[in-house]
């Protein structure tokens, strides 16, 4: 069986500087992976490459066996943006945002069909947000905001979910319930990949970890990769208050 994501010797350049160099990684279906690294290490670029928003100068990316341009049309990959990158005053309701998950599959006029509505309602039920369909998105709590965008990803029919800093700014309760949602999705076969700075809870949530520093320093099962030695290598050794199993 092909992997959910295969990244083969990918390099990305911005303004003549390499932000990712000779990066390779295979991500199997149905795992929860944490992507960690310092700010500016290339986590966002890695996500952009997977979404097909950035063209690598070398190498090859395959999403569910297809190049990103093809996988975009199928809606295989969905992106859940950082909270601070969303305009929360935008006059759209929860329902309308989740419906935006369907735009790639709709005709040119983007008129919602009955099937679209079913997808949206199922997605909202799944993330437990059906009671908030009419709310303007700015009127939600931090955790609810995240759920709406996860619902948009589900409405899109995505198999792979990319989440950028999903736990930033969440209280402990919201973090716990979002984690449960992500684990549930993984257990249903979705591939969930999150870029995060929450290193303490990482070993409890993630099956696999990828360490990023201009390239993939290491990736694989959390137990093998989330070690003092490799994490120090990724973060310049400033990791005193972290506990490691081994």
């Amino acid at each position: 069986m092909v992997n959910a994501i295969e990244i083969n010797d990918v390099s990305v350049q911005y303004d003549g500087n390499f932000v990712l160099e000779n990066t390779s990684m295979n991500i199997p279906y149905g795992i929860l992976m944490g992507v960690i690294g310092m700010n500016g290490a290339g986590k966002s670029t890695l996500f952009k490459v997977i979404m097909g928003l950035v063209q690598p100068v070398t190498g090859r990316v395959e999403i569910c066996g297809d190049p990103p341009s093809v996988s975009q049309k199928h809606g295989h990959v969905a992106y859940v943006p950082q909270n601070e990158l969303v305009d929360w005053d935008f006059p759209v309701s929860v329902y309308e945002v989740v419906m935006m998950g369907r735009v790639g599959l709709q005709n040119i006029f983007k008129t919602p069909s009955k099937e679209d509505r079913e997808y949206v309602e199922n997605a909202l039920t799944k993330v437990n947000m059906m009671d908030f369909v009419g709310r303007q998105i700015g009127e939600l709590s931090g955790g609810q905001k995240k759920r709406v965008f996860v619902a948009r990803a589900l409405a899109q029919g995505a198999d792979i979910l990319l989440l950028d800093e999903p736990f930033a700014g969440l209280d402990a309760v919201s973090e716990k319930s979002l984690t449960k949602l992500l684990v549930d999705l993984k257990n249903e076969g979705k591939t969930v990949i999150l870029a995060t700075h929450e290193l303490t809870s990482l070993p409890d949530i993630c099956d696999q970890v990828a360490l990023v520093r201009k390239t993939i320093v290491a990736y694989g099962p959390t137990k093998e990769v989330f070690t003092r030695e490799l994490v120090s290598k990724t973060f310049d050794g400033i990791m005193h208050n972290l506990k490691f199993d081994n």
Partner: protein
Amino acid sequence: MDIIQFIVEPLQYAFMLKAVVVSIVVGAACALLSCFLILKGWSLLGDAISHAVLPGVVVAYIIGIPFSIGAFFFALLAVVMIGLIKTNTKIKEDAIMGIVFTTMFALGLILISKVTSTIDLTHVLFGELLGISDEAAIYTIGTLTLVAAIILIFRRSFLVFCFDVVHAQSVGMRVRYIHYAFLILLAITITGSLQTVGIILVIAMLITPGSTAFLITKRFPVMLQIAVVVSVFSSVTGSYASYYYDVSTGGAIVFLQGCIFLLVFGYQTILSKMKLKTKVQQMS
């Protein structure tokens, strides 16, 4: 004089009837576009393009083609130049817009002062709705009806584009096409509005109605409707004010829009203060 006579009497004159119809179409098209512009944070772009069309008007006059075509060409030129400088330097977009539109506007001033004295600068800058020619009226009504129709038909795509361009791109929407389609619609709207309110005041038409509607509602479809109602009301009332009191038409339209915005703002500020007060009283 009763109210019906007040409204109907001016319409007996062809120029006034024409002016009212044109102002309705311009008001509606600008209002629809303004909702997207202010949400996307592109208000300044409307400002830039509208100034940049001035040399186009003069060049069109010199070579004897319709003003709108010359204006449209220079509008596109401004957009292309802004894009070109942005992709090749690290200068922020607002600064680039400022440089491009003032330079082109200045070129327009030079051309007017040197080449011809028959173009009335104030008409280009502030419009001449009550004196609009038949051809100009037909052009404006035709193009802006088309613009309004396109915006309404593709409103959902434009909304996704304004709200979350990364998502739009990641599900395979052609955001580059949407981006340019949007800019071309903006350029057409500005050139079409040239004779109505002029290139300075069209900026207000492209910002104020959407902003007023944004104050009132949190639902986008309602926002579109409110913006159109406010804008068309201001346009028609402004035309009448101009007829009865002999004041600048563009000035009257835009001033009215600004007043409505301030009224809504004032009403809402007082309302929220009062709500806060009752809440505090209930708590204590």
